[in-house]
């Protein structure tokens, strides 16, 4: 703030400053506001002086500010500062609005609080705001008057004219209804067809709950739409020659529209000019308009640049996706004869553009390397709009940023050098989730603590500065979960790193879990520590994004191991109370996922996965004849009967099976934001050796909410709404239950499921995404291929809602009606079921 003289400014020393005019503030205070001091040297006129005045204005406290020079003595100057203080608001009274809510809304929106400085501007904007609000609701006759009244404060005589009351008179009048919409001049389209283009509707007794009010903005849009409708059907010259709004009486208006349709036209020759990169043929193919087609201005525009779809198949994108940022395409009518129009599409290709600097801003938690490795636009690369769009989509899918607020910005665009800089602006969103539960279940208190950190940094755990509150930013996931009840405890931990080594997207996943369950004595209501069941297991897996056939594919492999140990404990899975079992398996999966943009609410794309899980075929080489075990003396008891416990121990010491699953999801954006999700699932569990049989593990349980709860046997629960949890066991089970000794609880080896779900988002804000859905689905499970019939389904339909909040994950509730009876019962339709959905299943 150097003081520089303006024009022939002269340096003075301030001898005195006097404050005059009306003010609530003491002279001292006002002088402090100015920052000027007696004894200070100052240029008049000068930079400092004008800054002081500006500073005072910026305070917004004064309506008039004047500096005077009282007198000059040598180099000494005596200043006078005259100020007029803006009056303060004391009370606001709003007349004409009955509801308190409406009055408060006005106060809030216009910030009318006691103490607010009442400027002319405030009054004008308040008036305009109120008028606009009611006009947009159809009260076209709204009248607003605002008066201010000075208040002489009796308690404080010193205060001059510093306070005012504001009185706002609002006269809404009645809502203006549209009585009729009269259309003339139309021959090609009927009145009805034209009215259908309009959102401005006339009053109709059938539409008593819909609006028939008049909104100017909407009306303008409607007129545009009518003309567009004509243009899309060959009527190039169509226009609205006149439109008038006639006031019938106080509350009713009529709209008269006069349309001039003009003639119907056809496309003539279409030629291209200026194209060197693409041939006429290539461009014609994209354009897709033939000579002789009915003229369609809307389609032509769309094929040149589709404003509604940034990834549209149009000429502009053909250039934009291949480096031609500076390209321009203009259609020009070259000749109109009879009903035919010739076009020339003039193309300025411009220089090819290359990205220079590519930067990311706004990441205050997530480290650069996590973001930059996901960018498809890199320095030195040819410009492509498609790459930018896809990068934005994929950054959104990371789940670390608010997908709705991701924005790419072009900077330093230089058509001469053919370069541009690109800046991605991201906004971090919370990525961690906490699960804390307590409740009574299974004979005692059950407590659960689950923590899931979705943007974890393992590197940061030894750095105390990184705890804010936890080391974050490397894109790793760490989940911890502990559940404890009086008779069982289970702990699990998993960690995953999406880019192992940082070179290529190879995801490493590891997990470990341990469960111990004690025998619960229902008589003593206590656990028996001598009788227990232990499961300890772990897994490690790698998943790699592929580049062939395209880069939406992921190939994964995993090794998993589980050890079961029984001490005098019957679990129903095995026929032995003491013993062990091991489950060592390899899982290979191939999946493809190109859903976008919001992982919570995909607007399109599809998701497929096929996985195969298999154990080594031990029985191929271990030389045990499982079918014959019962005839061997070492597997018989003293009486020569087969000892089922010994046989089962031999059969299940190392589990032997293979399991194949398929899962497909399609998301289609139907219209507006409605999305249809189509889902197909199959699963098959088989044995290599039929004598050894399919183990009672890893089976499919169909029905209900599909939430995997606490289970010992690695079961897979499959959601099928409209039926109780895990209720849809194979149909003929009941008839053979006694003979086979199977219980209803041992699951199926084959299942299939089909589901249709229509979704609509209520809000997609980062703080909470909410969507509603309605579904129809069906599925069935079988004991073997003999019974398999993909059309014999348990069907259901219903509706529900999902809420996603970053801190809690996904919560939802579904109401489903089951149309079929539960297999094995003759109860008729199962009827309504309510399902609560918790966790990340979509």
């Amino acid at each position, binding site marked *: *703030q150097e003081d520089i003289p303006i024009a022939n400014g002269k340096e003075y020393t301030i001898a005195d400053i006097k404050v005059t005019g009306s003010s609530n*503030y003491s002279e*001292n*205070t*006002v002088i*402090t*506001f100015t*920052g000027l*001091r007696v004894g200070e040297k100052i240029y008049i006129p000068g930079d400092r002086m004008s800054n002081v005045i500006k500073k005072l204005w910026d305070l917004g406290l004064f309506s008039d500010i004047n500096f005077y020079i009282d007198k000059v003595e040598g180099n000494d100057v005596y200043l006078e500062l005259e100020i007029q203080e803006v009056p303060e608001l004391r009370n606001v009274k709003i007349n004409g609005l009955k509801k308190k809510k409406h009055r408060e809304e006005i106060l809030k929106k216009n910030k009318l609080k006691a103490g607010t400085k009442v400027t002319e501007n405030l009054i004008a904007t308040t008036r305009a705001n109120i008028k606009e609000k009611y006009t947009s609701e159809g009260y076209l006759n709204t009248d607003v008057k605002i008066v201010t009244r000075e208040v002489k404060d009796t308690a404080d005589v010193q205060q001059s004219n510093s306070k005012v009351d504001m009185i706002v008179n609002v006269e809404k009048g009645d809502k203006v209804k549209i009585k009729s919409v009269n259309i003339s001049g139309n021959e090609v389209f009927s009145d009805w067809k034209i009215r259908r283009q309009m959102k401005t509707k006339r009053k109709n007794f059938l539409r008593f709950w819909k609006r028939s009010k008049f909104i100017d903005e909407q009306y303008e849009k409607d007129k545009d739409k009518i003309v567009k409708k004509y243009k899309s059907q060959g009527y190039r010259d169509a226009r609205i020659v006149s439109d008038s709004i006639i006031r019938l009486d106080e509350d009713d208006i009529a709209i008269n529209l006069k349309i001039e349709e003009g003639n119907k036209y056809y496309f003539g020759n279409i030629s291209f000019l200026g194209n060197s990169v693409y041939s006429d043929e290539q461009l014609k193919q994209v354009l897709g308009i033939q000579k002789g087609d009915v003229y369609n201005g809307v389609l032509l525009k769309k094929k040149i640049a589709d404003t509604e779809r940034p990834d549209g198949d149009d000429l502009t994108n053909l250039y934009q996706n291949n480096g031609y940022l500076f390209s321009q395409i203009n259609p020009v009518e070259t000749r109109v004869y009879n009903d035919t129009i010739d076009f020339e599409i003039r193309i300025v290709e411009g220089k090819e553009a290359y990205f*220079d*600097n590519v930067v*990311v*801003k*706004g*990441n*205050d*938690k*997530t*480290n*650069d*390397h996590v973001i*930059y*490795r996901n960018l498809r636009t*890199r*320095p*030195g*690369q040819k410009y492509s709009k498609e790459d930018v769009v896809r990068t934005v989509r994929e950054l959104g899918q990371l789940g670390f940023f608010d997908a709705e607020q991701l924005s790419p910005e072009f900077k330093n665009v230089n058509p001469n050098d053919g370069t541009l800089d690109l800046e991605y602006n991201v906004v971090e969103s919370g990525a961690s989730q906490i699960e804390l539960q307590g409740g009574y279940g299974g004979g005692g208190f059950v407590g659960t603590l689950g923590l899931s950190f979705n943007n974890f940094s393992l590197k940061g755990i030894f750095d105390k500065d990184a705890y804010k509150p936890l080391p974050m*930013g490397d894109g790793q996931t760490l989940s911890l979960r502990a559940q404890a009840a009086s008779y069982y405890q289970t702990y699990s931990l998993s960690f995953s790193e999406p880019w192992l080594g*940082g*070179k*290529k997207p190879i995801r490493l996943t590891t997990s470990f879990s341990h469960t111990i369950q004690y025998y619960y004595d229902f008589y003593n209501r206590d656990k028996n520590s001598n009788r227990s069941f232990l499961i300890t297991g772990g897994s490690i897996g790698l998943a790699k994004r592929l580049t062939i056939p395209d880069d939406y594919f992921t190939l994964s492999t995993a090794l998993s191991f589980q050890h079961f140990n029984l001490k005098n404990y019957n679990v129903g899975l095995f026929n032995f109370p003491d013993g062990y079992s091991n489950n060592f398996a390899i899982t290979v999966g191939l999946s493809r996922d190109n859903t976008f943009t919001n992982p919570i609410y995909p607007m399109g794309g599809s998701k497929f996965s096929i996985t195969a899980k298999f154990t080594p075929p031990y029985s191929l080489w271990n030389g045990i004849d499982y079918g014959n075990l019962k005839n061997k003396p070492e597997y018989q008891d003293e009486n020569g009967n087969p000892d089922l416990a010994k046989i089962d121990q031999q059969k299940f010491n190392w589990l032997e099976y293979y399991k194949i699953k398929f899962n497909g999801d399609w998301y289609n954006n139907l219209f507006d934001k409605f999305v249809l999700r189509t889902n197909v699932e199959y699963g098959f569990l088989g044995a290599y050796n039929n004598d050894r049989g399919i183990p009672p593990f890893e089976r499919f349980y169909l029905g209900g909410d599909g939430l995997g709860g606490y289970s010992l046997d690695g079961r897979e629960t499959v959601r099928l709404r409209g039926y109780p949890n895990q209720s849809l066991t194979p149909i003929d089970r009941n008839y053979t239950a006694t003979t086979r000794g199977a219980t209803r609880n041992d699951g199926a080896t084959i299942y299939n499921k089909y589901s249709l779900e229509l979704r609509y988002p209520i809000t997609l804000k980062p703080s909470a995404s909410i969507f509603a859905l309605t579904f129809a689905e069906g599925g069935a499970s079988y004991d073997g291929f003999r019974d398999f019939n993909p059309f014999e389904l348990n069907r259901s339909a219903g509706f529900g809602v999902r809420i996603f909040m970053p801190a809690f994950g996904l919560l939802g509730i579904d109401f489903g009606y089951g149309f079929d009876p539960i297999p094995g019962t003759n109860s008729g339709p199962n009827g309504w079921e309510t399902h609560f959905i918790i966790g990340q299943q979509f």
Partner: protein
Amino acid sequence: CSEYQKVLKEDDIKAKYVMADSLYNQGKKQGKKGKLKKSLRLLDQIVPQYRGKPQGERLAYIYADTYYQLGSYFDSGYQFERFTKAYPRSEKAEEAYYKGAESYYEVSPRYSLDQTETHKAIDKFQQYISRYPDGEYIGEANELVGDLRDKLDKKQYEIAKQYHHTEDYKAAIAAFNNFIEDNPGSKYIEKAYFYKLDAAYTLAINSYRQLVPARLKEAKEYYGDYFKYYPDGEFSTRAGEISTDIENRLQNINNSNS
């Protein structure tokens, strides 16, 4: 009810002022955060009321400084900035300019995050340095600016290095070129020259046959750049090996062509 609680609850702003001031002085002298926190609660109440009054200047200063002493640098940065704007001629102005800048320095995050605060801190130090070229804290200011600049350099360098690490050599070359152009004095420059050479070389030898000679020649140029500035640099041995290999390969190509 303690004396402090009483003052805190009552409306006597004069008493609050006196107590806040003495708590601040004691807290600062004795290094006691508890006292500073107490002072802060009083200051929160009275600072707005004294704005524009003669005591306002001192209050605004101790308000900012209390935040600073407590280590809440986001607030102290902002409050010192307000102070310097409102009282540019205060005798505490120099200190406030410096401490304000230092607050932003403290807030500046690690290099791999968004550096908005770092840029702001550099700006603030720059203001201090140009305003008080012979100032009391000029040495520290220059040193801290150096730290911040280094952080920005490191950020840009690491991003380019990541392109190299993920084997996107074309992007790496472009990014290293930008880096060298933007930060000629950086301590990462030698590395940048070397990895640019390495990227060009690796790209060349893994290219389609017809592209190899041109790309090798480009890599050779980059070796020239490196060698010119760092004949005895940290990577000169490895760079020399690359250079020899480039020469051999170019020789072979020439031989097989003729």
